[in-house]
């Protein structure tokens, strides 16, 4: 029976199940048998829908990407006119948002990297296009890129379980990265530290 909404429902159920398996057993545990057990969908149905493990990961990444692109568009629509460097601010906001879904993003990316780094080529192309836009919008392109890679650092280390910073510290640093007024027009970075003491 050709039923798109049913097909979509089973696809979403398979994606959710794949995330559970990746969290529990890592990339090596993601097999069609395991996915069938976790999702309750027959192995034959999963093979028909995805065909290969790489296709499951591709669907997982596409699912994440759709979410973050929609988030970025909403962010831009809400504040685009007020932003000096809209692409940079949107990318920083998206990276901040990615931390709110720690397991799913990190597991999906790590699994894709282990399985086949080429799965990330779409994401890489978009990242490169965004980076070109960030440079073209910036008065000081290198400072803009340093703000971007600092956001990468905050997001990646958190998602991969490597960050020693508290949620409050991370949120304050993201706020600082998003605040155009804190970055001087002469290209130098400046910050007005909050007076509260911070202990780890």
């Amino acid at each position: 029976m050709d039923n798109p909404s049913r097909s979509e429902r089973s696809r979403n159920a398979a994606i959710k199940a794949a995330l559970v398996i990746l969290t529990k057993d890592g990339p090596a545990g993601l097999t069609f048998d395991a996915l069938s057990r976790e999702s309750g969908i027959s192995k034959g149905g999963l093979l028909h829908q995805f065909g290969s493990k790489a296709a499951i990961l591709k669907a997982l990444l596409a699912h994440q990407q759709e979410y973050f692109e929609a988030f970025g568009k909403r962010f831009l629509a809400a504040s685009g006119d007020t932003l000096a460097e809209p692409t940079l601010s949107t990318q920083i906001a998206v990276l901040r948002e990615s931390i709110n879904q720690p397991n799913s993003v990190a597991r999906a990316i790590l699994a894709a990297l282990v399985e086949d780094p080429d799965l990330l080529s779409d994401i890489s192309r978009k990242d490169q296009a965004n980076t070109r836009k960030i440079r073209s919008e910036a008065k000081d392109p290198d400072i803009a890129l340093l703000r971007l890679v600092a956001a990468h650092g905050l997001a990646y280390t958190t998602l991969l379980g490597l960050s020693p910073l508290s949620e409050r510290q991370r949120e304050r640093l993201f706020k600082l990265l998003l605040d155009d007024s804190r970055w001087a027009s002469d290209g130098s970075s400046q910050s007005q530290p909050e007076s509260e003491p911070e202990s780890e």
Partner: protein
Amino acid sequence: MEQQLSYFEKFSRAYLAVLEPADAQHVLLAQIATARLAMDQPLDVTASLATAQTHSPELLESVREIAAANVQRIRDEATDPDLALLHWQAARGLALSALLGLCPLSEEERNRLFDRLRAETQKASEAPSGST
């Protein structure tokens, strides 16, 4: 992964030992240099992280403990602790994204940004407190 951590810790200590007395923010400068070194190593970070996340979470705990000690020292040395932490995060972001193959920048750009990061850190060290 343990071997890699030990190697970078040794490099960081050796780098700290040869910094000029006039250089402020020693720990941050050493961390930036260590991240730059790590970026160029042929490390299989992906497999190490995937294994550690699933089978050896205690390894990630030790990474966080070492990083927490560095964060405290970086904050203690800085006139602007938040800016210092952002410089540290930028160095980690550059190294980690390059090692994972996710960096949208060229090698030349990454090296230029590491140079700028070092220069910005030194400039922040020279500025009076609150006016960096």
